[in-house]
């Protein structure tokens, strides 16, 4: 019996547009542990959302998983190779929404405007459980109650436009949690919400994790959120995981210059308005003209000629790994 919920090994997902190939994910490996939260951080376009879409098999038509494996460790059916399932085939559809559920960035547009919230939550139950329509209605009310939505009986019959932003995200979470999934993928769940609502949503997610033992894959670009919620963290840059480990390892002893740069670019409350916030110089390279070696090399303060050679992952501890030619030297300087 493994304590893993999902393993991703050397995943490569490419996008094909205008006869050019964008290697959106270029060999990504990570594990999601049962009942734990894996945070994935990185700037826009680094492949966070593509990773989520690959796991859900919700990639756009012009992209595909080229190589690597995504293995779901099912408690009842053993290992399921998600990457080998047909995209919209019956087996994949059975997993989606039942074993693996997802919540999206913008709850304003993620709900269908012409159906009641109750109907949309009950839909997932209809396809993944044997509940009668009446039992589904009761379950919907229970779920909304769990999400802290007042007057759930009345609210279930209302349409998304009657809900506020935070309420809609709660409804989305209720929908995702309806079939008690083993893995919940949250793709920037609070980016579109204001900060006070953010805290409520995260508290709710944490509570669900503890009550149901759901593993969470939390995609964000907010280091503060990672520190607060995640057990493990993976830092992504240009389709690679440049550093991964437990939250303590990565946040307290960052090894990769990119991780450090990210941490340095976050303002800290209480240091006053004159604090020195460092931005990362340059811009993300064109995905069609990538640097030959380390992807971060053109923007890195520690870069040397050696950094233009292809590099590999090194394990510092059993869990902490980094993808940098010079991490040992940089480490010594600290």
């Amino acid at each position: 019996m493994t304590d893993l919920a999902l393993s991703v090994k050397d995943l490569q997902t490419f996008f094909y547009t205008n006869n050019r190939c964008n290697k959106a994910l270029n060999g990504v490996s990570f594990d999601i542990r049962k009942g734990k939260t894996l945070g994935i951080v990185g700037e826009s376009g680094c492949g966070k959302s593509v990773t989520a879409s690959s796991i859900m098999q919700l990639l756009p038509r012009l992209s595909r998983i080229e190589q690597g494996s995504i293995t779901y460790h099912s408690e009842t059916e053993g290992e399921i190779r998600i990457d080998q399932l047909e995209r919209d085939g019956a087996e994949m559809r059975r997993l989606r929404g039942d074993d693996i559920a997802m919540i999206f960035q913008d709850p304003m547009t993620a709900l269908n405007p012409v159906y009641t919230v109750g109907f949309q939550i009950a839909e997932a139950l209809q396809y993944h459980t044997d509940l009668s329509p009446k039992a589904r209605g009761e379950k919907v009310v229970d779920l909304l109650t769990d999400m802290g939505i007042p007057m759930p009986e009345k609210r279930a019959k209302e349409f998304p436009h009657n809900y506020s932003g935070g309420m809609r995200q709660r409804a989305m979470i209720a929908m995702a949690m309806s079939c008690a999934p083993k893995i919940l993928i949250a793709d920037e769940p609070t980016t579109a919400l204001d900060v006070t609502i953010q805290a409520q949503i995260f508290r709710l997610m944490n509570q669900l994790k503890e009550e149901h033992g759901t593993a969470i894959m939390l995609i964000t670009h907010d280091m503060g959120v990672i520190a607060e919620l995640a057990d493990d963290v993976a830092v992504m840059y240009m389709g690679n995981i440049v550093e991964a480990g437990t939250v303590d390892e990565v946040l307290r002893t960052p090894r990769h210059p990119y991780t450090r740069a990210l941490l340095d670019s976050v303002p800290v409350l209480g240091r006053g308005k004159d604090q020195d916030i460092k931005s990362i110089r340059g811009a993300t390279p064109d995905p069609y003209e990538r640097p030959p070696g380390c992807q971060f090399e053109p923007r890195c303060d520690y870069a040397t000629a050696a950094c233009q050679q292809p590099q590999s992952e090194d394990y510092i501890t059993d869990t902490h790994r980094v993808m940098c030619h010079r991490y040992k030297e940089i480490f010594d300087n600290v």
Partner: protein
Amino acid sequence: MLTFIIRRLLITIPMMLVISFLVYLGLELTPGDAVSHMIDPEAAARMTEEQFAEMREALGLNKTFLERYWIWLTNVVQGNFGHSLSGGVAISTIVLDRLPATLELSVFALVFSTLIGCVLGTLSALRRGSGTDNALTVVGMLGVSIPEFFFGLVAILIFALNLGWLPAGGRLLPGYETFFDRLPHIVLPGIVLSLMMTAGVMRYARSSMLDSLSREFIRTARAKGLPAWRINLIHGFRVALTPVVVLIGFRLPTLIGGSVIIEQVFQWPGIGSEFIGAVRGSDYPLVMMIALLSVFAVLMASLIVDVLTALIDPRVRLG
């Protein structure tokens, strides 16, 4: 909902008044008056000025414009539509005689174009970029750009004269009275009348469907593990439907206008062919009533569209 409908019906009254005035004014401005149309030119040549004046006096034509409008209006409101100048038949009789045929044709065309247009448009969107989609795009452009009477003539030539499958015109044969007896007669004019509308609905349904399929709630539906048909129809099509219903509502007047021509081509005994006859014969009372009736039909259609959009889209509030 009920208060909205009542309010809209009340708004219809001043609109109808303004339009009836404009119609009356328009016909007042055309040269000649009723007398000159009632009497054939040879008889008129032998009549004296006094006789003309007498007739005008008898018909009330010497009264001022506003007085005459008021008399006409009060009569119409009381259901007295007046008499046709040619033949002297009561206009209400003519309308009751002819209206069912036109309604039959328009409703057939409306139902046909809505169903076929939506089905083909959705198919086109779901198979975007495929051979089916491209073929339907070409057919759609042809349908929108070629005038209906041309289609009508071609259809008569092929299906009635060469193949002999369907009758070339008319509405019913003596002794054939049930709906199914009459069905063969309506097929050609009905389909020809609906062609342009079908093509329009199809193109519109396609783009509306593509728009709805690219929205995020489709991804949510997929993430729930729903089967493709449910994602496309229950989630995609339902949202795509609202703009299509609005379009169909706006196109209703063209259906009424088109039926005037199509009725002529297929000798369909509807109000459209009566209208052409009335205009040719300068039968002003009849022209006015038919024009008013079509205006009324358009106003009612737009009311129905408003109610329908409110029914299918919960975000629309009537008021």
